[in-house]
């Protein structure tokens, strides 16, 4: 921007500066209109390739939404945009009506109340199961408060509850790295719960799990919905069928179809995308 243009932009009375828009720390998403996540016209391109092409998507408060799509459909990129990892070229992303997600960095998004679970289980391997949950616990994130933080009785009880919920109470003092693949996935879900997010983004939660583990995970996720909104990205159709009420199909960075599972499975466009793969 040239200097005169820059100066002009300051005197532009209709302009809203970033710092005015920034939500106060600890602000909760405003969901009075029933929608917790607004993704509108988001475009992301990598070297000319459009990973997301004017993607528009809404998630209702309390909803459990599944997002499916072939490889390269833009599922992970969408999560990256929402959680502040990737900046889109164009579009808007709002958390409730009041929090502009595109103005926040990763810790900011997490503090606003969006938790993310990665495809590969990422827990703190050298910390104990208990410590993993303690670190994830909602609350102080500043350096000094964390230095002086002590676990209150209430907080300890909360951690115990979560340990029970994810079935890891007996492993609490073991290093997270020693857990099985499935247990790590649950621990990560437990960590998300400790963050007390309003919205959970979960990337392929059952990849590499045994059928029993899949069942248990489905149970965990269905229990979460209602209180919180959950968005699950998954390949496993059987699993999606067992948990989802609404399914969104992504293809080439756009929404191809959206609706209940039965309608989706009989949609000729969806069939073509999946069979063509």
């Amino acid at each position, binding site marked *: 921007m040239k200097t005169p243009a820059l100066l002009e932009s300051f005197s532009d009375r209709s302009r809203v500066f970033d710092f005015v828009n920034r939500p106060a720390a600890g602000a909760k998403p405003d969901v009075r209109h029933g929608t917790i996540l607004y993704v509108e016209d988001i475009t992301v391109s990598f070297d000319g390739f459009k990973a997301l092409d004017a993607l528009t998507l809404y998630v209702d408060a309390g909803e459990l939404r599944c997002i499916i799509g072939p490889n390269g459909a833009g599922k992970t990129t969408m999560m990256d945009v929402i*959680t502040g990892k990737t900046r889109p070229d164009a579009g808007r992303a709002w958390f409730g009506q009041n929090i502009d997600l595109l103005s926040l*960095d*990763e*810790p900011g998004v*997490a*503090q606003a109340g969006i*938790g*993310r679970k*990665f495809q590969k289980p*990422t*827990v*703190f*391997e*050298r*910390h*104990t199961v*208990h*410590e993993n949950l*303690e*670190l*994830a616990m909602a609350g102080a*994130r*500043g*350096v000094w408060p*964390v*230095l*002086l*933080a*002590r*676990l209150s009785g209430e907080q300890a009880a909360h951690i115990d509850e979560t340990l029970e919920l994810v079935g890891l109470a007996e492993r609490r*003092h*073991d*290093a997270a790295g020693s857990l099985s693949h499935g247990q790590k996935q649950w621990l990560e879900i437990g*960590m998300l719960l400790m*963050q007390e997010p309003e919205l959970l983004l979960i990337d392929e939660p059952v990849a590499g799990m045994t059928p029993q583990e899949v069942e248990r995970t489905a149970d965990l996720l269905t229990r979460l919905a209602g209180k919180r909104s959950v968005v699950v990205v998954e390949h496993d159709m059987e699993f999606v069928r067992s948990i989802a009420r609404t399914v969104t199909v992504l293809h080439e960075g756009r929404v191809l179809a959206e609706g209940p599972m039965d309608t989706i499975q009989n949609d000729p466009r969806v069939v073509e995308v999946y069979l063509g793969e």
Partner: protein
Amino acid sequence: MRHSNHGPVLTRMLGDTGSLIFVVVLIALTVAVPLCNVYLPEASALHVTDYTVALIGKYLTYALLAVAIDLIWGYCGILSLGHTAFFGLGGYAMGMYLMRQIGDRGVYGNPVLPDFMVFLDWEHLPWYWHGMDIFPFAMAMVVLVPGLLALVFGGLAFRSRVTGVYFAIITQAMTYALMLAFFRNEMGFGGNNGLTDFKDILGYELSADGTRNALFVASGVGLLLGFLIARFIVTSRLGRVLEAIRDAESRTRFTGYRVAYYKLWIFTVSAMLAGVAGALYVPQVGIINPSEFSPIASIEAVVWVAVGGRGTLYGAALGAGAVNFAKTWLTGAYPEIWPYALGILFVAVTLFLPKGIVGLVSQLRRRMRRKEPS
């Protein structure tokens, strides 16, 4: 398996055997060495010579530097190859105080200007030398100057998410730049001769026995306090966040922690500890010059930590003592071998003792325990 410890602060800090043994041995050493120096006759087998007191005192300050490095490297994965820059700055702050203490007893007899300034025909004391004759002010500078440099340098680096080997390289550049700057006479720090010919500290003659022993005790106490501060940090929840950053930086960010702030904070604390170590070092060796800033010196300090055992704090202190003892002995007996020995040591430790001496000890203990029941 490790346990979260949420008990009282002292049990939390000294709960593990290694730290407890270290603290006990350190206190014993700090008390015993001066006593054996002053009260035992020279003929006694337990008598500690003046030379040895100064030598061990120097090792103690190196150990504090090693603890500072381990705090960021062992616990937060930040490899600084420029940490002697902070050590050196702390040392120079102390050196400036000691220079001003000389007063008119210098060769040129100028009551205000140090000799090297008279020699350069300077007429006034540079602005940054003012106040350095006041002990509390100089001691504040010992902590604040390294801290400020770390804050600015780390702020720029961590904000831009410079990590790993790139960070290590720019810290080398930082200490190298400081070395070149301090070599220049115009900087007003005595050029390549540095600051030396110190006479006394707080009015006590530096070459006196009592002063030497007092400085030794100060170094022991300094190391003890530095160690306890570091232990307090690493056993707090903050310590667990630092380890989380070390092991899975991106995950830590998505958990809501501003990684750059944490790194900056611990880097600054570590630089301040290194500054204190430098300030304790200078009056005991009697000189500070730009070679303290040399890149190789910083690498050596990292080797101490690796040899002792990363991520235990006491291991770092132990490594500093062990390597420097070997250095003193080797440079006396076979001076030409030392650089090779240091190189071989680092390679050998990396290959065979990834957890250093401390790791070896715990491995041996585990093996002994396994043999016992049979």
